[in-house]
């Protein structure tokens, strides 16, 4: 049944499903472009495609006929069903997400043409395993009801008050813009992108209009790094740390596991070095606040941001001067001597400090000194980088654990200095057309930017905003143009030098939107301006293809025909390899670069602005999943807050939730306080990305805007180290914290051991209990018996799994009000405990989901058999049988069950997940029923189906549960316990394995492997008085 309408351009559609034949692919392509699943009312053949997500047809109408005792429903089949699209079966497409300062390869899971989940693309060499929380949640922003849906024009009447928005067609808009472009030049500023085609296109376009200027800016882009490279080695480059090769890592304020945009990538690499049976790496973190990196560090030392420089130079002094390693000239030596007494100056244990220096030298060529990010975003951030570079050169890490040439990051186009340049350009008022794309300039830049744009407009300039929302910036625009979601448009990305990904749309644009690229093509075409390639391409898709043909494939060795190459590319999604083992010569370090470095002047409290793993720079603040995502460190949702160390808080008489006034050189903000143990006593932290005013119904009014607190010193932002004065107020605003208590009370919950004790005893730290024979009859498992292993040693607590689970299992968002009442619904939570000295504690994280106990306590007490054991060892929850006595939860020692206290899936609250984003394979729970982790049983069923069709049993690793799939560090392993060869069985045999609350004899199917810390001190906080 070939479709009549033929669309040549579509014939390149490929799914990763190798089995499909060419014809089927074309069909698939048409399916993608025929209609939008959301246009179910407009009577096209896509009619009610969305409605198939229930068991077909859903237009509910009470029937007239007496014999019907259920509401009569309709079945609405396709008029022309694309043959590959099997109702009820997902299609997978390879794509990329390169939306922020990093990127990742994606596998997009679609149902009936609707993208419902983003999964990491294993073919991507850099981040084969997990993707970050924000990337996970990116999917539902596609369906955000508050997206910009129509091009708009801002009409100004004489009287200021009756300005209003006019909805316009693209034709009208194009006419106007083209009219403008004929006369005027363009000033363009966009958010960061890593797409080579896009870069080429923008350059082409700009070239077409002499005098036009384009800028790329992102509030968080770390330009200090590249400029420091320039200063140290004479060449600007974004280097790539190779964690998998690093045996000894010293991070000075660099949170490479948490806030770093590439954390998901680094976590994968870093996890490889944490195998206690192999050669386990050691991580030292110097930091002011408590970050994920600090939480996972083997040793953590508290230093305030302004003194990071002293730490780095101090280490240099220890290595070079004190221990006489490496060769430097006299001036450098002299400079280093200035930092002779760093340890006592910063009250760091001197022995530890020199030991670190020794170990660094011992591991030279295999160690790594890191800095950067907002935590280290001090005024002299560049100096920090230079010092770090110096160390890495001295230690010979440069070129070994630091890749500056092979697969370094080449396509970070954003520059911090671009903002100033842009404002200057704007001020000059040469160009009468201003285009801002996908960059919420006003929110990030604050009043200065606002004013600049106003002046520009008053001077008769036209401000065109191409954005996703009508946000703070969009509100100022004269012309407002909706852009495509990355799941709706073609594109590409260069993850690292030589590693590319292709972004293919998985759904036709839901709204009347058009990407910047397409607009530029149309305008250039209309004006007959620009290069041949610009003129030659009708759609951006053509442009991307021609670019790849001419530029990317050109560089590739293989002499494959382009069509085959493209075919392969679309299936694989990624092109290019990472260099096997990087072994580059150490670059010569310009020692003069050190000259200007001086010791940090630290007085009083210091501000440290940072970004949270969930909200990031605030771009996605309207995604409720991210707002409700508990911060990996503080476990607080729906807010940002000023973090104080325990000591400071006690001194000031501050409790969690007390509103404090932060006075940063005149700028004041009022924000609730949070007591963050382990933070430096004279540091106050505050997260960026909150306090949106026009971010959407979810984002608005959540937290306070910290961007005004960023000082910009000649184009460089200062995130950390600014002097801040905190004053307590009498006001109070509770923080929606999802964790009640932060210590383990000496119970055996998270078992941890030092590497040394592990080497002696593989089951170190695990407190074994003696049991009498259980009175319970054993269950019998003839076929499979599902189990899950969670390796605490490679779990860094990033929480990617939490959002992955939420996306897979239709878990509702409850909102701040109810999180405060403890009604959050996450099936998977990450418990975080502190132990030891509360000024600088050890942190422990543990993902806890339903443990699927063998002797499940919940099963015995449910009066209506709504939760029962199934014949494959999972503890199944039958929503439709549940009457909601909640007895099961009371009897659950892990308290992993969640109850639907209210109807949260009606879609009548801004927080509610858009209906289109629901996973059709999972029942949407009604009010009054209990729910919990099901081991992603729908995935188990699907894989078993495939296996049965092929008359075989399920292969090990064939079933990937959502959390496992989302985990960047591969901490979670799911499989069949009955198969002795499976990875879980193997892991369960390892002596590091223990059961949570083993003495309770529930015999969980989820088992944990102890965390091993490569540290000297023994962790004391374990299982004080043990029960036997």
């Amino acid at each position, binding site marked *: *049944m070939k479709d009549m309408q033929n669309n040549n351009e579509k014939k390149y559609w490929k799914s990763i499903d190798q089995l499909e034949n060419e014809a089927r692919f074309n069909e698939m392509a048409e399916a993608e472009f025929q209609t939008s699943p959301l246009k179910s009312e407009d*009577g*096209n*053949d896509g*009619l*009610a495609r969305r409605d*198939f997500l*229930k*068991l*077909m*047809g859903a*237009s509910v109408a009470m*029937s007239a*006929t007496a*014999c*019907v*005792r*259920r509401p*009569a*429903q*309709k*079945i*609405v*089949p*396709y*008029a*022309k*069903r694309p043959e590959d699209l*099997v*109702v*009820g*079966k997902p299609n997978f497409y390879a794509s990329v997400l390169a939306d922020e300062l990093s990127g990742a390869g994606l596998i997009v899971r679609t149902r009936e043409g609707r993208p419902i989940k983003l999964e990491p693309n294993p073919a991507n060499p850099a981040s084969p395993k997990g993707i970050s929380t924000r990337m996970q949640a990116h999917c539902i922003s596609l369906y955000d009801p508050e997206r910009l849906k129509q091009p708009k024009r801002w009409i100004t009447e004489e009287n200021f008050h009756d300005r209003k928005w006019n909805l316009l067609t693209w034709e009208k808009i194009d006419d106007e813009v083209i009219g403008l472009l004929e006369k005027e030049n363009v000033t363009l500023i966009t958010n960061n992108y890593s797409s080579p085609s896009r870069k080429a296109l923008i350059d082409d376009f700009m070239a077409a209009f002499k005098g036009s200027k384009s800028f790329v800016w992102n509030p968080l882009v770390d330009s200090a790094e590249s400029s420091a490279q320039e200063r140290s080695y004479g060449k600007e480059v974004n280097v790539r740390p190779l964690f998998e090769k690093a045996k000894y890592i010293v991070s000075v304020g660099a949170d490479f596991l948490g806030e770093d945009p590439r954390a998901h990538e680094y976590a994968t690499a870093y996890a490889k070095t944490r195998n206690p049976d192999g050669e386990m790496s050691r991580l030292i973190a110097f930091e002011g606040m408590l970050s994920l990196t600090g939480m996972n560090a083997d040793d953590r030392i508290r230093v305030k941001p302004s003194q990071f420089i002293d730490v780095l130079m101090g280490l240099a002094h220890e290595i070079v001067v004190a221990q006489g390693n490496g060769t430097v000239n006299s001036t450098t030596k002299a400079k280093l001597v200035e930092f002779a007494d760093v340890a006592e100056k910063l009250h760091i244990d001197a022995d530890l400090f020199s030991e670190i220096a020794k170990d660094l030298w011992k591991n030279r060529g295999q160690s790594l000194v890191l800095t950067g990010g907002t935590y280290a975003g001090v005024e002299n951030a560049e100096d920090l980088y230079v010092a770090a570079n110096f160390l890495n050169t001295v230690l010979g890490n440069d070129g070994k654990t630091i890749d500056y040439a092979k697969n370094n990051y080449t396509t970070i186009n954003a520059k911090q200095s671009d903002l100033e340049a842009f404002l200057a350009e704007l001020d000059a008022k040469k160009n009468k057309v201003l285009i801002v794309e996908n960059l919420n300039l006003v929110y990030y830049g604050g009043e200065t930017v606002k004013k600049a744009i106003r002046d520009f407009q008053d001077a008769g300039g036209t401000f065109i905003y191409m954005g996703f929302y009508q946000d703070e910036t969009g509100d100022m625009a004269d012309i407002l143009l909706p852009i495509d979601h990355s799941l709706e448009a073609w594109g590409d990305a260069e993850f690292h030098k030589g590693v590319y990904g292709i972004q293919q749309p998985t759904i036709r644009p839901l709204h009347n939107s058009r990407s910047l690229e397409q607009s530029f093509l149309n305008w250039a075409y209309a004006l007959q301006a620009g290069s041949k390639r610009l003129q030659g391409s009708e759609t951006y898709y053509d442009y991307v293809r021609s670019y790849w043909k001419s530029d990317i494939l050109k560089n590739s060795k293989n002499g494959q025909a382009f069509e085959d190459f493209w075919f392969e590319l679309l299936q694989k999604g990624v092109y290019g390899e990472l260099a096997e083992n990087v072994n580059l010569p150490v670059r010569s370090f310009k020692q003069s670069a050190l000259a200007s470095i001086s010791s940090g002047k630290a007085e009083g409290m210091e501000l440290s602005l940072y970004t949270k793993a969930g909200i990031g720079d605030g771009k996605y603040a309207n995604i409720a999943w991210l707002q409700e995502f508990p911060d990996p460190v503080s476990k607080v949702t729906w807010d940002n807050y000023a973090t104080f160390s325990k000591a400071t808080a006690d001194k000031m008489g501050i409790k969690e939730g007390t509103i404090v006034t932060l006075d940063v050189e005149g700028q004041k903000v009022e924000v609730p306080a949070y007591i963050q143990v382990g933070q430096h006593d004279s540091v106050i932290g505050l997260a960026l990305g909150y306090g949106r005013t026009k971010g959407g119904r979810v984002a608005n009014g959540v937290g306070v805007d910290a961007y005004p607190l960023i000082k910009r010193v000649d184009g460089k932002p200062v995130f950390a180290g600014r002097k801040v004065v905190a004053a307590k107020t009498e006001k109070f605003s509770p923080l929606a914290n999802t964790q009640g208590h932060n210590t383990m009370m000496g119970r055996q919950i998270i078992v941890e051991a030092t590497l040394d004790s592990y080497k002696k005893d593989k089951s170190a730290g695990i407190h074994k209990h003696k049991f009498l024979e259980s009175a319970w009859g054993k269950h019998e498992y003839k076929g499979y018996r599902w189990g899950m292993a969670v390796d605490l040693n490679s779990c860094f607590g990033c929480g990617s799994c939490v959002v992955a689970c939420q996306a897979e299992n239709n878990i509702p968002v409850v909102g701040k009000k109810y999180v405060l009442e403890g009604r959050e619904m996450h099936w998977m939570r990450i418990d975080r405990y502190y132990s030891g000295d509360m000024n600088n504690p050890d942190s422990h994280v543990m993902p806890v989901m339903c443990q699927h106990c063998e002797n499940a306590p919940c099963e015995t007490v449910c009066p209506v*058999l709504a939760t*029962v054991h*199934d*014949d*494959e060892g*999972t503890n*199944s*929850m*039958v*929503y*439709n*049988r549940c009457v909601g006595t909640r007895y099961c939860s009371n009897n659950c020692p892990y308290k992993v069950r969640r109850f639907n206290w209210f109807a949260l899936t009606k879609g009548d609250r801004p927080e509610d997940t858009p209906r289109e984003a629901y996973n059709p*394979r*999972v*029942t*949407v729970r009604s009010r009054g029923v209990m729910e919990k982790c*099901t081991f992603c*049983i*729908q995935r188990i*069923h699907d894989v078993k*189906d495939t296996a*049965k*069709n092929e008359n075989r049993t399920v292969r090990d690793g064939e079933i990937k549960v959502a959390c496992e799939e989302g985990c960047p560090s591969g901490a979670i392993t799911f499989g069949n316990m009955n198969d002795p060869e499976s990875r879980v069985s193997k892991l369960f045999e390892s002596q590091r394995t223990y059961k949570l609350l083993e003495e309770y004899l529930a015999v969980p199917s989820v088992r944990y492997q102890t965390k091993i810390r490569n540290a000297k001190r023994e962790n004391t906080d374990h299982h004080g008085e043990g029960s036997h």
Partner: protein
Amino acid sequence: MPNKNLKVLVGVVALVLIAGLAVFMKPPIGYNQGYQPTQPIPYDHSLHAGKLEIPCQYCHSNASYARHSSVPALNICMNCHNQVKTQSEHIKKLADHYNEGKSIQWQKVHLLPDFVHFNHQRHVRRGVACQTCHGPIETMKEVFQYSDLSMGWCVNCHRKPENNAPVSCSTCHY
């Protein structure tokens, strides 16, 4: 007066019996057995499946490789009907819809609740005849719900040892 007591006794026993009977006869409350809605186009299974002996899966093509057997898309009907019987008003209607790219809103006959994840694929591949559940479809001029599709009805078949079908709740409910 023993005979009086006897009367009472008899009465009570009778009541109990009637009550018990009523309960075990399982009045089909809340089930749509026999539901036979009128369809926008009076598609005749007895003609297509019965007289013409078109195999079920020609139209319900997904049945053997997806969870939903799925009502055929209009292009499947049109495969034949752009030649066959094009003059009939119904076919005209069908053709019109097809050409306008509109779909037809059939009345749903078999209503399984959303929380029951039934899987056609498994049953078809297991060699369960369509008729086992859908009844003598090839004789139905208008389709009606043959079985009551109650959980008991499902489970009683799953329970039969010869079928060795799973009977865990999680087989269908998740």
